[in-house]
């Protein structure tokens, strides 16, 4: 199996001493990996470190074998991201927003822009200005922007925020088909356990800046547990260990 993401000993420290510490994670092609954890645990920080928005204190990140540190442009060619809320130009139409992003890639043409707009269900609104979009529509456009370059890895931070029920169902179908048909590797952080359980091949828990456990979702269900039960158990064990120390 090809390793699309290799994160080794990733460490980021903020001035308030929070951040992430010594996280290592490898994702294979076509894998959907879910990151869960309490608020402020370091999920978004880890994603930001992987995509280069934050400078690493220590460690290394490679995307398809290209280091994000030494070969940034080549590494980013293989990655699409939706981190926190989508970064969009409100005065531009949905189509023009994607056109701005497409200019950084040689292989993205107008047909590809139309295709991703269609994938996220925004074809009919492509000529509307983003400032008139609902939160859910902006989120869809953010997902379209992440998919635009046909990347090998996409990072999605709370991707279903603001999506209605139909939007969530469509999103899950889209993610599944991208993983199966296009062999896309997906790293999702979310608070929605049920959503991750039905979508991810593997999940990991970030707690207090550390990756305290990873497991196959199929193994969790084999133990007759829901993801939520497994999560609670892991967090409790961690707290007990911390109290014992």
């Amino acid at each position: 199996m090809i390793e699309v993401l290799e994160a080794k000993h990733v460490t980021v420290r903020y001035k308030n001493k929070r951040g992430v510490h010594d996280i290592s994670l490898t994702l294979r092609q076509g894998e959907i990996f879910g990151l869960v954890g309490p608020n402020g645990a370091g999920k978004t920080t880890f994603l930001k470190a992987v995509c280069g928005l934050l400078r690493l204190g220590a460690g290394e990140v490679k995307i398809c074998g290209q280091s994000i540190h030494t070969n940034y442009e080549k590494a980013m060619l293989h990655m699409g991201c939706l981190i926190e809320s989508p970064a969009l130009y409100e005065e531009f139409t949905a189509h023009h927003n994607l056109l701005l992003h497409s200019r950084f890639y040689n292989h993205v043409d107008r047909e590809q822009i139309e295709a991703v707009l269609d994938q996220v269900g925004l074809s009919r609104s492509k000529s509307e200005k983003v400032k008139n979009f609902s939160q859910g529509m902006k989120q869809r456009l953010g997902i379209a922007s992440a998919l635009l370059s046909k990347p090998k890895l996409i990072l999605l931070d709370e991707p279903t925020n603001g999506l209605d029920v139909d939007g969530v169902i469509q999103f899950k179908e889209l993610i599944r088909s991208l993983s199966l048909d296009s062999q896309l590797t997906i790293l999702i952080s979310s608070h929605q356990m049920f959503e991750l359980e039905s979508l991810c091949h593997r999940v990991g828990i970030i707690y207090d800046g550390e990756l305290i456990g990873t497991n196959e979702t199929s193994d969790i269900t084999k133990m007759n547990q829901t993801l939520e039960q497994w999560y609670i158990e892991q967090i409790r064990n961690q707290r007990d260990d911390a109290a014992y120390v």
Partner: protein
Amino acid sequence: MSNWKGAIQNEWDILWKKKTTKFFVGFTVLVPISLGWLLDKVNLSFGLLPISSSGIPLFTLAILISAYLPLLIFMLVSDGLTFQPQVLKAFFLRPIHRYKLYCARIIAIAGLIAIHLGLALFTSLLSGWMFQEWLGWEAVREAFLAYGLSFLPLLLWITIASFVAQWFRSQTGAMISLILIFTCSYIFLYINPAASAFSPAHYNDWHTLVSAGASATESILYGTSYLFSTGFLFFLIGLVMFERRNI
């Protein structure tokens, strides 16, 4: 498409999409036309001509470089280069180095300022010709030289503003600080005339030195080196700060 070209094209699109950009371009065109018309009226009413037709391009330039274009630069830079994570994130997640994005923003703003100067030159020549008389090829050459040379100090203000903008998260904060710095650099000229050569405001009308010709060779050389070295210094510090941003 190379990502350099893409980045510059994007910055240009973003600049041009703003209503204020179009408004100020319109205003720049209107300044020399209204000036020509006003002089014509003054001349007809009072038989006085405070400025000749050949003076209209230079008088327009004086208005532009003394405050109007620097303020426009401050507005554009504080809008595009302050530390607003949501704005910066849009292109930081793409396969392009940050230094290219920084340069692209500066190039786009410098390009727009060059267009303002070009439009003002063209309309001021036209205005002088329409409302008064043809000013002659020598005056046209002088006007071209003056407008071209005025671009250099404006470029310095762009690099200074880009550096200052790196310290701010809000457009308003950056804008107010830049206006204060600009005002102080003018006040400094009067407070300490002996050291005025260290103030960027001293070089706003730098073109007059060059127009003076050989008699000012030393000042021209000093001015050129000041403009380039200071501009390069501010550009580099701003770039390093922009590069090291954590979002």
